[in-house]
Every structure is written in C-alpha cells, then in structure tokens.
C-alpha cells in the first residue's frame, strides 16, 4: 500500500489575495468569531423538508465522521455537513448532496439518530423538483429506468436473454402456468451486465442442482428502483413499485429470492408501504438453509484465500452477516480471511444511494473511489479472491482492482464460487 501522504499547509511570509493579507502560519485566526455570527437558517432549511428533520438533531460529537467511508476519501460525514450548513453551505445546491451513499454507518454510531438514509433522499428529491443541479450520469440512469425499465438502458425484450447461457432450464412464470415455490427476482445487473450474467447463470445452476422449484418473471421483470429512490427520484420509484407489485401479485409463489441486496431492501422494507408484504430473502439467506444438501455438491476444492465484502444493504440495512460467510466456508479448501472493517463496520463500495451512477461526478470531489479504497483493503489481507454478494459490486471492484494495481486478486460473486466448486471445470 502506498504510504499515507500528509497534506502540507501553505505558509508564506507575505501573501495578499484580493487585497486581503493572509500571510503567516496556516492556522492563523484573522478575526475572532463567536458562534452567534452564524445563523441556523441553512440547517433549518434542510430540517424543514419532510424526512430530513433529524438533520437538526446533530450535537457535533463527530462519532459519525470516524466511520463515514466518504470521509476516508474526502471531507464528509453528517457532522461536517451540519457544520458546512452552519457556515453558509446550502445543501440543496452543494456537490455534497450527491456524495452520501446512504451506507448507514453513521446512523449506527450516532447518539442523536441523525439519519442520512432518510435525509439524503428527501433533500435530493426537493432539489430535483426545484430543478437544481443533478449529476448528468444520474439523470441518465433515471431516464433509462423510466423509459426502458432498467438503469442500464437495455431493451426490455432482452431481459431474459441471459438464460440461454445458463446451460440449465430457467422457467418463466408466464409460460409455466402453475404456482411455484420460489419466485427468483433476477435484477437488472444480473440480467444485462456481462459479469452480472455470470452470477445469474451460476445461480440458475445452483437452484437446479438443489432441485428448487423456481421460476423468473422474464420479460415482465423491471428494476426495483430502490437506489433511484435513495438518489431522490421518489416518483420514479413509486411508478416502478406499482408496476412490480402488480406483476408479483399476478402469480402464485411462496417466497421470493433476490440476487441483490438493494432489491431485498426495496421489496422487504419499502414496498410494504405500498401494499406489498410477501416473504422476500436474499440468495445467501436462502441457500444457507440448504447447506446440508449443498455441501455434498461442492465437490471441487478451491484452494484460495478469500476475503468477503459486506454489502451495506445486506449487512447494516438488513442484518445478514453470517449466511454469506457460512456459504463461503462450505467450499472445501477455501480459507476465509477478514478485512479489518467488516460486518457492522463494513466499508461501503460506493455503489449505494445512486452512487452506482455517479462515479465520474464523485471523482471530482474525492481523492479516490470508495471501491478502490476497499479493493486496497482487500488486497492487503493477502486474499486471492474478493468475494461479493451484490450485483453492483463485481463490476465496481473489477475496475478498482485494475486501477489500484491489484489485478492478481479476482472478484467473484459467492454464487460464482459455489458454482465453480460444484462444477470444478472452470479455472480460478
């Protein structure tokens, strides 16, 4: 890892900028200020937006800053936002509005329950409605979701094209014409992104090998839109939720399994507000139930050191830390090593809360991507493989291992690792 460089303050004996003498040590105080020089106006402006009330609760203890991933690559955290607002930053127009990934690590430690997971979507929604600045890439993801049903802008008719590569039957509910045990919601990235498709195919083979009675929605499946909601497009989210709920309810199934943690969060925690309350689990939680049946299928050892990245929306948001680890440990030969920041304190990959579609924008306001920081942490454990359980992550981390010079470390979804141990015919 590169040595940490300390910023060096500029100190000049004689500097005049715009007629103002700023000579002397960098920490020089030009004039005494009292706290009463600041107005709480811009804090109240944020807190007056429904959903963002807790912003005003902050009492500046700074516990949040210590755990905020964005602060590691920049200057961030609820305390800092509060302070910026106090000293003149209008959050609704500041670039800071778009940097939070809603990873919820600050909420975990905040004694005052300042909740960025609610504050951010509310303020962003207001900014979008008021026609304020919205990062162009994010707008594109919104438009794609509204027009095509997925943020990638891929045609709806190709949503189930990936099934041809699975090598096993992937039944589609509409054609099946009978109730199933499991409705598998595949998700947008597993349906369209080349590396996501790899995970989807692996899942299909695992479900088949376990003899699970499952089916997918095929061309009827559309994006869950939870990240779009967190990025501020509530209307888009509601439009998608209405469609999805109607589609889910057209069919008889006992339980829904989702490939992605964001979908889990949407269907389990948010769709109930819109009248949908049927059982939904993440694939790790689901597969762990079948561990006894799965273990004998995992015939081929994987003699590799593997570290696991906790997705924020599986871990902190939904409390699932152990199932992914149990699945990994079921693979013979595999050695699981932990990164220093794991489980409740897992470090965000930067993809949540719309961050998935704002990489170029955030790059202008941070020293490196969160995924790059995390890839470096993973590499520091000496792992050969970085295992993930969220479809946003494979592509994010694959870019990150390349850009940080850690190509020797492979990035694989747990599904892919299980599938390889099952089949043994693929090199890792």
């Amino acid at each position, binding site marked *: 890892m590169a040595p940490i460089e300390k910023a060096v303050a500029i100190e000049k004996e004689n500097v005049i900028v715009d007629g103002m003498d700023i000579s002397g040590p960098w920490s020089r105080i030009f004039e005494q200020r009292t706290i009463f020089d600041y107005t709480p106006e811009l804090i109240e402006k944020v807190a007056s937006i429904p959903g963002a009330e807790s912003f005003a609760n902050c009492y500046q203890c700074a516990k949040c800053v210590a755990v905020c991933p964005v602060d590691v690559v920049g200057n961030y955290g609820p305390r800092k936002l509060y302070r910026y607002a106090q000293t003149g930053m209008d959050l609704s127009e500041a670039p800071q509005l778009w940097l939070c990934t809603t990873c919820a690590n600050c909420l975990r430690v905040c004694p005052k329950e300042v909740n960025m997971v609610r504050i951010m979507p509310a303020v962003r*929604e207001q900014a*979008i*409605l008021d*026609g304020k600045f*919205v990062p*162009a890439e994010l*707008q594109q993801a*919104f*438009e794609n979701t*509204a*027009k*095509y049903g997925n943020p990638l802008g891929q*045609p*709806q*008719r190709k949503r189930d094209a990936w099934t041809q590569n699975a090598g096993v039957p992937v039944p589609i509910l509409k054609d099946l014409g009978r109730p199933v045990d499991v409705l598998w919601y595949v998700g947008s990235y597993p349906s369209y992104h080349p590396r996501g498709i790899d995970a989807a195919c692996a899942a299909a083979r695992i479900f088949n090998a376990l003899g699970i009675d499952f089916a997918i929605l095929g061309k009827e499946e559309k994006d869950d839109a939870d990240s779009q909601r967190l990025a501020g*497009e*509530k*209307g*888009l989210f*509601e*439009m998608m939720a209405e469609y999805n709920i109607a589609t889910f309810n057209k069919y008889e199934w006992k339980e829904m399994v989702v490939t992605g943690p964001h979908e889990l969060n949407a269907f389990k925690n948010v769709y109930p507000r819109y009248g949908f309350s049927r059982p939904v689990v993440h694939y790790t939680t689901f597969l762990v139930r079948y561990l006894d049946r799965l273990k004998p299928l995992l015939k081929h050892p994987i003699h590799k050191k593997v570290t696991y990245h906790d997705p924020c929306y599986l871990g902190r948001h939904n409390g699932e830390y152990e199932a992914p680890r149990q699945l990994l440990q079921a693979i013979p030969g595999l050695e699981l090593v932990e990164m220093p920041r794991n489980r409740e304190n897992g470090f965000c990959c930067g993809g949540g809360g719309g961050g998935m579609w704002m990489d170029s924008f955030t790059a202008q306001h941070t020293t490196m991507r969160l995924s790059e920081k995390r890839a470096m942490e993973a590499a520091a454990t000496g792992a050969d493989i970085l295992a993930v359980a969220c479809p946003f992550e494979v592509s994010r981390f694959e870019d990150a291992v390349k850009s940080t010079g850690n190509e020797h470390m492979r990035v694989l979804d747990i599904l892919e690792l299980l599938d390889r141990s099952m089949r043994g015919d693929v090199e890792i």
Partner: protein
Amino acid sequence: MHIVVAIKHIPSIADELPVRHNNIDFDSVDFVLNEWDEHSIEQAVLIKEAVGGTVTVIGVDVIGELDNALHLALAKGADRAVKIAAEEPGADSHQQAKWLAEAIQNMSPDLILSGVQASNDLDGQLGPLIAAYLDLPYIGGTSAIEVTNGKAMVLKEFPGGIGMRYEIALPFVAGVQAAPKPPRYAPVSKVRQIAQTAKVETIEPGEGESGGLRFLKMAPPVVTGHAEMIQGTAKEIAARIVELLKSRGLL
C-alpha cells in the same frame, strides 16, 4: 410570444418491430415520444425562459396514449397541451401535418417548432408540410434559436461541422435538430403530479385525405452476411488473420 411545438408519438424501436400485413403491428408495440421532439420542447422552453411567452404542445393522438408525452412536456415547462384525437396509428407525416396545420392555424403562433425528423419515417416532412399548409417559411436542422424583437437568430447545422447563422422574421416553422442544451430531466414525481391536475385539450381531426405515401409491402431486412468471430490464443488468432489476408490476395 406564442410558441407551438408539434410532436409525434411513434412506435418504440427499443423493442423488436413486429410486422403485420403491409405495416407495423401497432397493437404489439409501445409508442414513445419522438426523440427529436424532446429537443424541440427544450428549445421552446428555453426561448420562453429567455423572452417570456407561452408554449403550446400539440400532437396527433394516434393510439389514444399521447397524454403521457403531453404531461411530460408540461412538466418540462410547456403551458398548454392539445391532442388531436385521430386514433389512426398508421397516419403518416403527411396526414399528421395536415391535421396539425389545421389546428395550429387557429392558435396564431409566432413560432412553430417540430423535431427535424422522426425515426418512424426519417423523411423530415412534418415541419416543411406544416409550413406549406400555413404558407410560412421553414428552416430545418437548427441547433439554436434566439428570439429578439420579432426576429429570430437561428443557427443551422450543415454536414462537415459547418454552421450558418440566419436572421428570420417571425412567424416561421423550424425543424429542430438539437436544442442548445441537452433536454432537461422531468422528475417522475412532477409528471405524476401534473397527470392528476393538468387538462389536456382534445380536438377532432379535420376531414379529407392528405397526399403522402402508400405502403405496398413491409418486411424485416434479410440478414445476408455476418462477421466471423475469430477465437483462440493470440497466436492462433494471428495465424487465422494471416491466412484470411492471404486468401484474399492481400499478402
């Protein structure tokens, strides 16, 4: 300042285009707003923001689902939405231009904008035909329009990166190639709000046929050849490329 934007609702090419008899199977495709119309709406709203006035968006409702596109235009800043209830999915640009011109005639517009073309015909006829019906000048391929004192400065694009500036007296018809800024995003929350409150005016299409094209036959293009994907190691691929070049007499 009254700007009228004539829009088209066209079959989406995001999905496969099913053909039935001598035309598209309109029952099994989605209809979307023509993408150049997104630019003409943006251009109209930009002019309105610069000099004031009102923007009316009007289109032929060929399948009875134009409201969505009209609500979107209202969310982006249009003031008034009008649809011509024709319910004729096969109505071509010539027919639509006739209906639109008849309706626009009564609106006393200062400026009429249309998308320069649409992916369902690509003949770019809608704007010129409306201009002809209304006996107004037409300029196509615009990339910026600025209005001052009854006149407009229009930037028109030519191939090869050449642009030309025109000064044109109002009123006239313009075929918008691009707005000077990318079309703004209308949040779905806002579009949905508008859908609940906005009033879309409906008018009946005029009588009488227009000139235009008659479809004789429509068929998907026949695939005649495809690329050969060369696979293998770098060496094997190189060997295959050499072999191919030799077989074509190029080496």
